[in-house]
């Protein structure tokens, strides 16, 4: 069994000790006072099931590589009958697909339909779909501060972040019968859901924020930077000035926001950089730590102590964060990249594991490592802070860290369910995938081939991981290798709101964004998120105008017909299929679902502007971003993969089949909350 982490608080300890002592005194035979729930009827103790989640692994590319002998271990599984395409969710977005993996049911069971949702009561106000920060209740104002004191007599309720994923996760069923499960980097589970009986461990993955509360904000300092601080998607840029080869004034590293202030503002750490042009090196002097870097060198993880100012007589709060420095260039233009400030795994300021001390236990053995959900800094590449080669190196560091974490996982695994997730294939594919002879959005043909080949090497590394797991556990465990979706080129972008405006569904000819200047009284439908299309339905949306019933039906039919008829200038179909969510989703959590899911054809995706409701002049545009591949198409266009060391009998397995399969492997029945079937049964 993996280690039991169920910790008793003092009261629970006293209660159980007293009960046990009383029982012993009375001569009553009792099961051990601290034992977790006993094994369930039919459960198979000692059984091992290992799931390797390889985000974005594409079946087409996998087959090509298997056919040419470049994925020998996966090919071996294929030859044993253990390979199929894996049907993903609609929409095929990672948070949606992994949440469906967790629940063994479609998005109607967990209520996550996109990266972002909208609040109909606030007419289209967007928010993150997977987690939400609830405001606190009550506070005490002291000078410039607003304190929340959660003890008597104040009993304020501090703000907290809650997981929005609904439904019953598969590990709850295992936990209840005493089967241990451990998940590393699990997406769609931040903050991690608690374990009732202490048989479940989890390190939260995709969706876990950095200390700034974002999905990852790098900081970039350069001699040709902007005046002041320039914020950009996923990063901040600042200028560096040198006096006698020492940065002057001191540079400022932005940290977590001090929410104890009436007007919250970010904490900062000042640091100095001393450069030696001749040695092509620099020394970074931060909080008493000296970091010597040569040009093109990365630092190790550096611990930082962010001090949050408190009112007089109250000690200041301290939050520990970690970052890495990368000295890109010493001269002629000094450039220094600082990674997003990650939660320090040795002293976490936020809860990112279940139980809380799982992360510190890992850190005791592994040291410091990335803890944000998105570890490969794709934003730095998109914003041209990184070159392609620099991104590849950074992604390699991430993969190496995760391989070290996998070693840890294997060392601490005896039986039960082990799930391990790799993000490398997904985020590298977004940047490096290009499988056609058409012109790449930003790269020359040679570079496009070179970096697509780099992605294929990452596939080969995943194959080695599978090989190692097979040699370690192939005869004793059920091993499943799976991905949540595949990949496709992203060559052309479609602006859904512009199309709606041009076709009269948004009757505001000068409107530029559904979040800014739209006339809701003349708007019947709008797009938000990557695949979502919402009706402005009366009684549901604050300013809704579409009557439920016949008008709604007519509008849906018109939209489906119109969108599926859209053609690009070369005659290609842009949208493969538009899905009605009231027909395709079952389950109790469909309240925030879009009315329609727009399923794009390969090569197309929602435009960048569409995601947050913006409109462009033209409906169809070239994608000119380095983010040149995507999977937010129609689910039929981008299936994932599934490999196993057991023959897969189900001909069209789907991602929702995994959880039921796992439960069956442990001898448990498929619960009514799950819609999937066992892939090893016909």
């Amino acid at each position, binding site marked *: 069994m993996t280690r039991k982490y169920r910790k008793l608080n003092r009261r629970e300890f006293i209660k159980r000790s007293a009960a046990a002592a009383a029982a012993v005194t009375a001569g009553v035979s009792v099961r051990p006072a601290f034992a977790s729930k006993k094994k369930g009827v039919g459960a198979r103790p000692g059984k091992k099931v290992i799931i390797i989640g390889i985000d974005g692994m594409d079946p087409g590319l996998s087959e090509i590589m298997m056919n040419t002998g470049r994925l020998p271990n996966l090919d071996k599984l294929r030859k044993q009958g253990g390979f199929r395409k894996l049907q993903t969710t609609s929409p095929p977005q990672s948070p949606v697909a992994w949440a469906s993996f967790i629940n063994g049911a479609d998005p109607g069971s967990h209520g996550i339909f996109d990266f972002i949702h909208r609040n109909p009561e606030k007419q289209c106000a967007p928010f993150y779909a997977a987690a939400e920060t609830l405001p606190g209740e009550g506070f005490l104002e002291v000078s410039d501060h607003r304190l929340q004191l959660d003890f008597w007599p104040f009993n304020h309720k501090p703000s907290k972040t809650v997981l929005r994923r609904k439904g019953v996760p598969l590990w709850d069923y295992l936990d209840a019968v005493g089967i241990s499960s451990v998940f590393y980097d699990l997406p769609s589970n931040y903050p991690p859901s608690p374990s009732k009986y202490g048989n479940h461990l989890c390190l939260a993955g995709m969706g876990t924020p950095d200390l700034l509360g974002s999905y990852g904000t790098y900081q970039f300092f350069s001699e040709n930077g902007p005046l002041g601080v320039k914020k950009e998607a996923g990063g901040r840029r600042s200028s560096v000035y040198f006096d006698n080869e*020492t940065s002057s004034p001191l540079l400022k590293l932005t940290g977590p926001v001090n929410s104890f202030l009436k007007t919250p503002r970010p904490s900062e750490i000042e640091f100095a950089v001393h450069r030696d042009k001749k*040695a092509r090196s620099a020394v970074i002097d931060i909080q008493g730590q*000296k970091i*010597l870097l040569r040009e093109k060198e990365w630092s190790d993880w550096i611990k930082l102590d962010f001090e949050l100012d408190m009112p007089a007589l109250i000690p200041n709060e301290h939050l520990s964060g970690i970052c890495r420095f990368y000295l890109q260039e010493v001269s002629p233009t000094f450039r220094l990249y600082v990674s997003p400030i990650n939660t320090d795994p040795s002293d976490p300021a936020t809860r990112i594991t279940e139980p809380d001390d799982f992360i510190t236990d890992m850190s005791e053995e592994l040291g410091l490592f990335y803890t944000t959900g998105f570890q490969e800094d794709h934003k730095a590449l998109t914003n041209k802070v990184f070159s392609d080669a620099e991104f590849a190196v950074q992604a390699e560091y991430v993969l190496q860290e995760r391989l070290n974490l996998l070693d840890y996982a294997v060392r601490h695994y005896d039986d039960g369910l082990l799930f391990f997730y790799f993000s490398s294939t997904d985020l590298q594919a977004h940047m490096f995938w290009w499988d056609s002879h058409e012109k790449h959005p930003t790269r020359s043909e040679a570079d496009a081939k070179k970096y697509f080949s780099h992605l294929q090497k990452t596939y080969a590394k995943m194959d080695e991981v599978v090989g190692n797991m097979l040699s370690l556990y192939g005869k004793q465990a059920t091993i499943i290798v799976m991905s949540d979706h595949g990949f496709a080129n992203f060559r052309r972008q479609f602006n859904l709101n512009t199309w709606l405006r041009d076709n009269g569904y948004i009757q505001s000819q000068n409107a530029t964004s559904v979040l800014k200047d739209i006339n809701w009284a003349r708007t019947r439908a709008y797009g938000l998120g990557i695949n979502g299309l919402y009706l402005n339905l009366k009684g549901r949306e604050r300013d809704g105008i579409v009557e439920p019933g016949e008008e709604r039906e007519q509008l849906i039919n018109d939209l489906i017909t119109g969108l599926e008829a859209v053609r690009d200038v070369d005659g290609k179909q842009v949208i493969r299929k538009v899905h009605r969510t009231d027909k395709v989703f079952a389950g109790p959590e469909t309240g925030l679902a879009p009315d329609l899911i727009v399923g794009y054809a390969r090569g197309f995706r929602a435009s960048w502007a569409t995601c947050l409701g913006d409109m462009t002049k033209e409906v169809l545009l070239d994608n000119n971003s380095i983010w040149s591949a995507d999977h937010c198409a129609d689910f039929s266009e981008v299936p994932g993969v599934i490999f196993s060391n057991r023959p897969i009998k189900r001909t069209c397995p789907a991602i929702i089949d995994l959880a039921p399969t796992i439960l069956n492997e442990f001898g448990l029945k498929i619960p009514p909350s799950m819609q999937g079937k066992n892939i090893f049964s016909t």
Partner: protein
Amino acid sequence: MIWRVSIFGFKTFETNETQCNLTLYVKSSIGQDNLMGVIAKIMAWVNIPSNIFGKLLLAPVGVLQGWFSITIISAVAGVALLAVFKYISDQETRGKIWDSIHAHMLSLRLFKDSLSVTMRAEAQIFKGAFFLLVYSIIPLLVIIIPVTLLLAQMGQWYQVRPLNVGEQAIVIMKLNHHMGEPFPEVSLDAAPAAEVTAGPVRVLSKGEIYWKIRAIENGKDRLFFNIDNKKVEKALSVGDGFSRVSVERPGWNWTDILMYPLEKPFGADSMITSIAIDYPDRESKICGTNWWVFYFFIVSMIFAVTFMPVLKVR
């Protein structure tokens, strides 16, 4: 010649001619160097026997578990310092003060209904406590000397740990350098225990030169620097477990010489102010970086208080 010394309630003790000669030397030296320089010289001398004693007495640290060795050292030090305190403090006077405090505490209990007696007793208790403090100052000032030397020696074992093989560390050379002067030509030779992976990196504004080294072999070694064709050296420790680690070869500064006693300090006229290696912290809440000092004081105090009745110390 024997001198008798008695200062402010401090127990009378005898000293001899040798110690007086030292005092005379100190006085004459003040005429030549400044006071700090003299103290630095004294510290450098004191470090010689201190290092010998430290090496011999603390040698078991290298083979014992960290928590065990620091507990033993703290316990022995607590009891030994208590004994020293007994013989250098005026126990008779302290006893009288204690008796007086006890008497007034008793009167507090007996005459708690009388405001005037209570007030007087409280005033006497405060006065007694104050005098206890006053009579402790000089014994404590005397004790502080061996305690400081002991802590300096212990710091070489517990404050940091040696580099592990494969681990990197920064080496910092501080120069006696003035803005605008050209930097000297400096290089660092590779040593059997470590290779140089980066540097020299000159930090003009601070007069410092940096290198990065990587440990490649366990053992005690020396780093050799060439500075304007002169050779200087610095000790290096690579290995697991506990061993004496000299973080810094200090310059001519008495506090640095006190804190980093293991290596010969650079002279006042040296081009180099110090050479330090940024060794990794020792991770332990008992015998790790900075924590070991707290642990030492707590355990030594516990043992000292426990042995007060045994040694009849008041």
